């Protein structure tokens, strides 16, 4: 690497293209390993995913020849009710997460932005839970919400009939959504709290002098200041809903029946339980389109934050 630098510094040998001269002055070599690995194992798989969706791939020919069948998979997938139901469920999950992350997130952040040992400890516990592998917190809730688990036996003790949290077709989706909301809240509190602390103190004090109460100040004065942060948080939350898979896999695997099949769960189950690789790939691609719609404003927002 150092030879490259000296070569460039030593008055540009003739015969080198403009491109390599340009690259010689940049830290491109520091980026090459990352580019190589991501090209091979992150970008290339996405290309394979597209090829898969345009071919007929099952367990027998996963290694071997794939016959090109055009858009047939897409026609099949989009004319099946299952994907639209899954889309509706995913949107439902996203809406609940948005409400929870904003309402509980803002209130929680307000509560925890008052200093002290209690708040610090609570924050630490929440961050710990957030960093916990989803397989762990998912397993914990599978136990807690089991038909004869601790929560139901606690309900029983106060005379309430047990609830089939994870085994009732009507309730399971919302129970899992509740678990996801619980697991996602610490992140939202952390982000909103960070933004709260950055709101100018004199702004808040001026409102207090005008006689505005705490919550009035929080909602009228502070909340509007948080708009950029909340914008990014909203997009991240929706993306999270479209990505959420671990908790479903651990707790219900899409069941009972197909009642908790959100888009990622449906794609996974189709490919790895039904062994219809190309149908799974097609569902995956359709749901990535939904993700892409939110990706554009997110990337814009992040870039805006970057530019001072």
């Amino acid at each position, binding site marked *: 690497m*150092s030879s490259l630098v000296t070569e460039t510094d030593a008055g540009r040998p003739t015969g080198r293209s403009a491109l390599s001269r*340009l690259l010689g*002055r*940049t*830290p*491109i070599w*520091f*980026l090459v*390993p*990352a580019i190589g*690995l991501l090209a091979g*194992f*992150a*970008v*290339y798989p*996405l290309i*394979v*995913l597209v090829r*898969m969706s345009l071919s007929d791939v099952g367990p027998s020919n996963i*290694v071997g020849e794939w016959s090109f069948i055009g858009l047939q998979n897409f026609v099949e997938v989009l004319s099946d009710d299952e994907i639209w139901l899954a889309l509706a469920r995913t949107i439902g999950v996203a809406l609940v997460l948005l409400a929870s992350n904003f309402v509980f997130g803002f209130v*929680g952040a307000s509560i*925890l932005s*008052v200093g002290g040992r209690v708040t610090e400890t609570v924050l630490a*516990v929440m*961050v*710990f*839970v957030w*960093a*916990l*592998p989803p*397989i*762990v917190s998912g397993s*914990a809730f599978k*136990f*807690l919400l*089991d038909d*004869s688990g601790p929560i139901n036996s606690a309900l029983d003790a106060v005379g309430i009939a047990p609830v089939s949290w994870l085994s009732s077709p009507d309730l399971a989706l919302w129970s899992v959504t509740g678990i996801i909301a*619980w697991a996602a809240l*610490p*992140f939202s509190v*952390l982000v909103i709290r*960070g933004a709260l602390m950055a709101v100018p103190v004199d702004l808040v*004090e001026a409102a*207090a002098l005008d006689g505005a109460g705490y919550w009035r100040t929080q909602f009228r004065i502070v909340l509007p200041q948080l708009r950029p942060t909340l914008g990014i948080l909203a997009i991240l939350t929706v993306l999270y809903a479209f990505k959420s*898979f*671990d908790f479903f*896999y*651990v707790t219900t695997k899409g069941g009972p029946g197909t009642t908790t099949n959100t888009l*990622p769960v449906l*794609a*996974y189950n189709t*490919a790895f339980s039904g062994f219809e*690789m190309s149908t*799974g790939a097609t569902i*995956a691609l359709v749901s*990535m389109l939904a993700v892409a719609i939110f*990706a554009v404003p*997110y990337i814009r927002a992040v*870039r805006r*934050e970057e530019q001072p």
Partner: protein
Amino acid sequence: MISRPLRTTFRVLALVLGLAYLLPLLWIVLTSFKTKQQVLTEPNGIFFTPTLDTYANVVGDGIGAILTSLQIAIAVTLITLLIAVPAAAALARRVSVGWNRVITVFLAALLVLQMVPQPMTVIPLYSVLASWKLLGTLGGLIVADIALLLPFAIMLLRPFALAIPSALYEAAELDGAGRWRTFRSLTVPLLSNGILTVVCIVFISAWGEFVYAINFLPQGIVLPVSGLLAQQNSTYSAEWNSLMALAVITSLPLLLLFVVSQRRLIAGLSLGAVK
């Protein structure tokens, strides 16, 4: 500014919030110290004679899984770090207009890659690993994990790299230090806080990853702890005490890291998390 009664209300609310997160954790730990019988008859019993039998059984059966997890997590963390630190450093240096453009494109690509849901990558990776003869090997799983975590690691490190003043780089250049030398003796030491954060996060994520593990490792081979946990979870006659003991073992690395560097971890996460 905040009145005294409000402050008290806040403290109470904070405690409620804390309990909502602490109680489930407590129940995992409590259950892991019970016998199977105790869990079935009294899932909420707080007073019981704790037993280490469950742990003895789980660790005895799962020592292979723990070793596999360690191998995977250490390899993934090391290699991710080796690739991510130089990349983050390069992406934080605005040396020319052309390079700035490269940075923008690369960052956008990283953001997109981070947004791709894991079930969407597991489907094609299955065939990619199969055709490269990596399916069913630890190496294949490790590479897949690295590709999964690398974008996040670079994005997490970059703010730390941006905080290094460019005057330092100019001084190093004046002193005649080459790129590699500058990287080794200037960038890496100044990034140590960021590197610590990334090591923690990547290690925990690789240790807890199970979707790739259960699909890319062949049936019958020793799964990592997380994969074992996922597998046990799907059997219907769940032995909750063993399951919770496995869950505790799966969260041990995080617990250790938290005890050692909780403050720095929270600060580092707050810096990098929003991106």
